[in-house]
């Protein structure tokens, strides 16, 4: 009998890798077209906006999961009694 394949542990990994490659290309393009309009030095780091997007998304999802799971979530009928 053919053994059933296990589901991948992180199914989002291959598409995330593809998206990251696109992000790297955008970072290269932004670096090439840099017009010196930014004053802050961290904004001149190649790929800063990709990293910022990734890090902010990661933090926001973590914060939302923590707040809803540990503090703020109640049953759907909480206000109905």
């Amino acid at each position, binding site marked *: 009998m053919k053994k059933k394949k296990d589901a991948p542990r992180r199914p989002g990994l291959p598409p995330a890798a593809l998206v990251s490659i696109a992000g790297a290309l955008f970072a290269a*393009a932004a670096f090439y077209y840099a017009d010196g309009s930014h004053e802050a030095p961290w904004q001149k780091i190649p790929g800063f906006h990709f990293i910022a*997007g990734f890090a902010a998304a990661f933090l926001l999802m973590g914060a939302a999961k923590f707040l809803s799971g540990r503090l703020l979530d109640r049953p759907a009928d909480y206000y109905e009694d």
Partner: protein
Amino acid sequence: MFMHPAIPFLFAALLTLAKGRSPFQRAVHLAVPALAFACLYPYLPKEGLRELHRVTMPLGDLSLQILKVDSLSILFAGVFMIYTLLANLYAYPSKGRAHLIAAYLYAGSSLGAVLAGDLLVLFVFWELMALASALLVWNPERPASLKAVYRYLLVHAAGGLLFLSGLLLRLHEGQSLALAAQPFDLAGGLFFAAFAVNAALPPVHAWLPDAYSSGTPEGSVYLSAFTSKVAVFAFARCFAGSDWLVGFGAAAAVLGVLYALMQDDIRKLLSYHLICQVGFMLAGIGLGSDLGLSGAAGHAAGNILFKGLLFMCAGAILTATGYSRLSELGGLAAKNRTMLVFYAVGALAISGMPGLNGYVTKSLLFAAAAKAHLVWLELLFIAVSVGTFLSIGLKLAYFAFFGKPPAKPATVQRLPIPVLLAMSGAVFCCFLTGLDPAAFLYPYLPYPIQYNVFSPSHLFETLQLLTGTLAAFLLMLKGLHPHKSVTLDADWFYRKGGGLLVKGVCLPASLSQETIQHGLTQFLKSADARLRKMFPSVSPAGAGYSLLVILGGIAAAAVWFYFTGV
């Protein structure tokens, strides 16, 4: 002869009351924004939009400015009229006479509010808006919505009283009632608080998701556009350049986006996100620069269109499937591709995708923060933009349209043609102002724009931000899986806390020693269980020692300060 642009709306409401949905009423239903525009036309500036026109009316010793047309009011009034046309188209198949009457009065009074030249006229339209919009919160199919109407009225009555108190103080002191920059004295503070209620600034924000997720689909489409934007307009008139506004706006943006990420109900998610976007606008107004004010006004105009489009899609999903929770939806993309396309445009516009209007107006606000050298605000704008794409562009889109369908998949009905036309109109406006802002947006903003939003560098930076967010979402997809729940918010204080307060006040009269002992034991047990759940790895002994050390440290510090007198 002068005719106020709000009068056609009053006429439409009276006609609907008298005749119901007759063919003539249906024609007026679609024509009413055009009639309002015809009333406003003689007062439009003929030589450039920055010229000012006023119409005054005597009332006793006062001279009321019932119409003030300048670059700020004409932008808001123009977008209100365009959006009313789209919302009326969306509500065309609706049979609810009472809701249509409320919608006309609500849209008309909102138009009157943004054309008001003094605080008294603004107050009258402000209160009319609150009363008319309360009816839109009522959904005959959801009995619980009546309680939401009651809460909505209570909050807005409190806001109205703050406004009235400020107004009476100004009159008592014999000061000007002109709708212009206000000093931050007692009356000014009362106006600020009243505007904050309507703008849903924290901590008085919870009414917005409570009300906007309760109404009928058509009701929510109207509600999403007016109340908060009129408050943004009032803030722009009276408190431009206020540091308080930057702080409150930033807080609203963060709170709104975090709560949006936690929601299961799609209209609640959109409502929380509306608070976030209003925060964006108010922070821009608080900067006080030309770029900040123009960016905020442009973002308010754009938000009316793309947020309206998103509420139209949410209403369409609710109408077509009967469900509004992400945990009950899924796989809609295969059943209705048209809805997916409309939703995608709205979601990408609000996320700041180049080519759509959100990209332009957000870029102006980013640039305003950078020019003010507020690095923290610029970083906060970046984080909030990421949260916007995450909650609306990815979470809602994925779980409603592509997620695993529930065990009992919803049947999807076809959408009526007027609804499709309304959504197409909003999509058209989003693209028009997004692709050519120099022709269709900048000339109507309060101040001239000297900023190129389409520089290749900025374009690729935005795309990086979006791809970075998408990569993180794909990796953490499981963590955002929706589940049926409610999220505690500030409304807990008047939905539960009020009852608990009454119980607490009455408690001492009915207590014996045994009940006190029993209650205390139960409280300590539940606190212990809750703490163990929150911090499973900390042993009770460890927690006790830590608490002892902290308390000992505080006591030692107090003794030290007492004796040394530092």
